[in-house]
């Protein structure tokens, strides 16, 4: 049974780690990587709420990420909105879109849902490329201002690090609360047996849409943060490939595991950097990882090893004679 204190301690340890890490890692490039780990963590977390907890697949989440980035980017770069206000507007717009699209889309199941979300993501991507007057087209949108509070501008790696990770930690904390609450239980119930969940009064349809919208909103916030950190956005970052990468992060880290999402995000952000020389091989690696993880370690890294360990333990305990 879940022990509240353990959860709090885990979170505090994480917070401490985040606070202290720049003391050890102060090279600009590395800090930049950690900034991306933060952004990807928020994205993986958002997707995990939908995929791991609510059990609904989305192959188009890069689209929501991109929408957040572009709406923030356009409002601030072209129309000189206050960046914080723009972020709020972006999140609100994306939430609205997610609700509108969510009701019809989440009536679909399995492959149909996967394809529909894929299609949605690609439509968004095409719009980014084609609405050149608004978005700058394939060459992207530049001149996006940094975020600032008063005179304090987030324009260095270390400042962006703390900015992003503050958001990430808040997102993690809120998600942990959600997952351990009646809503979290309801989500897991839908996942385990939707028919039984309905019988005891869980409005599965509404809840799925709500989580979809929440997941989209979080992704949009990550997008806004990305836009203001990079000061430049281009459609290439928000295509199908990135949607697949996000799914891979969640699968590797572990479905329905908040800390797993962090792990998956960290791994898939750091490894490509380490393997810069092998850049072209990355999609092969993702493909292999997806297949192998799903076949052999379905719990992901967060749960998979404990699961696999207990499986092997019982196998050895029973002895070879009882193998079926």
């Amino acid at each position, binding site marked *: 049974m879940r022990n509240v204190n353990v959860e709090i301690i885990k979170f505090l340890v994480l917070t401490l780690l985040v606070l202290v890490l720049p003391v050890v890692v102060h090279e600009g490039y590395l800090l930049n990587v950690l900034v991306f780990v933060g952004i990807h963590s928020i994205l993986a977390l958002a997707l995990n709420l939908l995929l791991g907890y609510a059990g609904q697949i989305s192959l188009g989440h890069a689209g929501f990420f991109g929408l957040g980035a572009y709406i923030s980017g356009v409002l601030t770069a072209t129309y000189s909105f206050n960046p914080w206000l723009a972020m709020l507007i972006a999140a609100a717009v994306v939430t609205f879109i997610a609700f509108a699209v969510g009701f019809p889309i989440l009536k679909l199941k399995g492959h149909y849902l996967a394809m529909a979300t894929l299609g949605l993501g690609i439509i968004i991507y095409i719009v980014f490329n084609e609405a050149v007057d608004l978005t700058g087209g394939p060459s992207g949108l530049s001149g996006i201002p940094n975020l600032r509070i008063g005179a304090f501008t987030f324009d260095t790696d270390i400042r962006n690090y703390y900015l992003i990770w503050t958001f990430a930690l808040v997102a993690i904390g809120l*998600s942990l*609360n959600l997952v351990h609450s009646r809503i979290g*239980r309801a989500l897991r119930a839908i996942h*385990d047996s939707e*028919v039984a969940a309905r*019988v005891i009064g869980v409005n599965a349809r509404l809840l799925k849409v709500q989580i979809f919208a929440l997941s989209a909103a979080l992704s949009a916030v990550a997008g806004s943060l990305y836009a203001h950190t990079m000061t430049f956005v281009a459609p290439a970052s928000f295509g199908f490939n990135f949607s697949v990468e996000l799914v891979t992060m969640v699968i590797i880290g572990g479905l329905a595991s908040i800390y797993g999402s962090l792990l998956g995000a960290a791994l898939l952000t750091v490894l490509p950097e380490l393997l810069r020389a092998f850049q072209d091989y990355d999609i092969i690696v993702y493909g292999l990882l997806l297949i192998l993880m799903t076949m052999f370690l379905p719990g992901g890294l967060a749960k998979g090893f404990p699961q696999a360990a207990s499986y092997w333990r019982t196998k050895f305990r029973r002895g070879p004679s009882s193998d079926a």
Partner: protein
Amino acid sequence: MLEVRELTQRFGGITALENVSFTARKGEITGVIGPNGAGKTTLFNIITGIYIQTSGSVHLNGEDISRVPAEKLAARGLVRTFQNIELFGNMSVLENVMLGLHTRSSSGIFSCMTKMPWHLKEEKSIRQQAFEWLEFSGITDLAGQKAANLPFGKGRLLEIARAMAVNPSIMLMDEPAAGLNNSETHMLAALIRKIRDRGVTVVMVEHDMELVMDICDRILVLNLGRMLAEGSPREIQENPAVVAAYLGEG
């Protein structure tokens, strides 16, 4: 009280139910029996909103619930258990029962995420009530176990505890004795009586005749989608048409 009026259900060319009417009264245990294919599960599926009937209506405590979607019925006091027990396997026994209290709680996504005080208070209350229902079913010692690991008999008790947590006025039970041995069935009978004594109307589909004759106040017999007979256990046992249906064509 549950009232079914002239319920008819057709699937394409097959008539699963035809003109079935009955009333299950408060404080009574009503049994629904009949040979396989008689339409018993179809009847349950219609009442619980999984199917929409071709014609006829279902009334709960006077209100027409024919068009009410399945997930809204729990809040109105109607709950159901399944023949194959539908547990939330990956969750603990306690969490399963806590889910039964879903409709009796209301913290939304925002309150849960931000741990608002009323949410915390509600959580505590949910937990406490869940323990009380575990005690009702006699499975308090299993609270921390993963539901999927329970033996079938205990899983059945868990499903009942979860259903009772909804605080229903009507409990529909689909073959509750299926898969239970003799002593488990006796315990089930006692539990169902306990449920009835709390004022819950119980409607039970069953094949275990001993159980049915033992605890049911009224019995409804279905055959080939139609009502064959209705009455007290004794009347049903002495009804020649019923005997023929079971032993003759049955």
